[in-house]
């Protein structure tokens, strides 16, 4: 088709659209919903004694605070990555926060081993991984829907940040409902779960986030009637 004619058709088929809200605003909306979901899921799987034990241990609480901050920054990066022309600086912060979270877990490991030994049960360590991956799946789905409303500029990057956002937040719930004997084990299991989420999301990203999908999503796909 001739480009001039394409331009005329695009203008002729134009429908009004509401501009997407800023990535920070959309990220906040997702985070509030995700925290509620993780909170309810965690409470349904946790005894009051477990929660009390976690609350009293700063070596468990500190990495969780960092994990929530990481999730917040990663979801902002996810939603910023689908906005053309948005500053790429937002990509740096979640990476730093993730590094701090890993460092916090590693640093807390020796101090915390003794304090939490009583609340851990070795035979259910793998459950945290199930909780992070399967429990996080609905959050990934919601984030995918939100990301698909944007431009699929870097599908793999978007998917990786989405997985980090979901993984770090789900990790908080898993730390409360399935605590490990020390943060070294947490690091291994939760790190592996987040890695699985990242790999799965990145592998599926080009099917979910593509320009052809964006054209379908826009609702007024150009009618090429020939």
């Amino acid at each position, binding site marked *: *088709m001739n*480009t001039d004619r*394409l*331009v*005329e058709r*695009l*203008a*002729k088929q*134009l*429908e*009004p*659209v*509401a*501009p*997407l809200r*800023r990535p920070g605003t959309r990220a906040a909306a997702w985070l509030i919903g995700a925290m509620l979901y993780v909170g309810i899921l965690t409470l349904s799987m946790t005894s009051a004694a477990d929660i009390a034990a976690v609350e009293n241990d700063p070596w468990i609480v500190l990495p969780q605070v960092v994990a929530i901050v990481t999730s917040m920054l990663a979801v902002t990066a996810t939603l910023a990555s*689908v*906005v*053309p*022309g*948005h500053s790429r600086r937002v990509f740096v912060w979640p990476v730093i926060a993730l590094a701090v979270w890993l460092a916090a877990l590693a640093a807390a490991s020796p101090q915390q081993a003794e304090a939490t030994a009583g609340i851990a049960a070795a035979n259910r360590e793998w459950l945290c991984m199930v909780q992070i991956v399967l429990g996080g799946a609905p959050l990934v789905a919601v984030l995918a829907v939100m990301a698909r*409303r*944007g*431009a699929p*500029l870097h599908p793999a990057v978007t998917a990786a940040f989405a997985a980090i956002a979901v993984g770090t937040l789900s990790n908080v719930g898993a730390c409360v409902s399935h605590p490990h004997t020390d943060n070294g084990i947490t690091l291994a299991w939760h790190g592996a779960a987040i890695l699985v989420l990242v790999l799965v999301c990145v592998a599926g990203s080009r099917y979910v986030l593509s*320009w052809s999908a*964006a*054209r379908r*999503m*826009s609702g007024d*796909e*150009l009618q090429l*009637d*020939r």
Partner: protein
Amino acid sequence: MMTEPNPPTEDLDQLMRAAQQGDAAAYLNLLRRITPRIRAVVLRQRGFAGVAEAEDLVQDVLLSLHAVRATYDPARPFVPWLLAIVRNRLVDGARRYAKTSAREIRLDETDVTFSEPATNTDTGEIADAGVLRQAVRELPEGQRQAIELLKLEELSLKEAAAISGSSVGALKVATHRAMATLRRTLGVKGK
């Protein structure tokens, strides 16, 4: 290529804001203004791939821009938003080009002949554009218009019907008759 002075970018911002609100005239104006710019960027980066490929990329950028126009933040400048889309589509285009060129071998057009004379439909008479043009000119008015709109201008049946004032069915019949007349005139055998 026609060159025009670059419009002030604030104008483009305003036009895009109006386009988001559904103002088709503003959108048409915006697309007409940015198309030469997009074409210039594409030709600069991918001119080696040929004009047709570059034009495909320009159209790809326009379709992409249209699909994600909701991502434009009215509080931000339009040009960086546009350039991010252009860059992204150029990278995707380069990737596609690298993939296909690795699998394709370009051949010059060659005459193909077969041992059976009946199978050699590609005769010199048909290849002669002058003879074909003359044959089209000699068609009855309705048939000539159908051929011009549908085969030469490559309009859809709907568009051709709107322009000619004929029904889609009548256009199909006229095209069929015109093709039969042309085959007879040009002495082409077969379907």
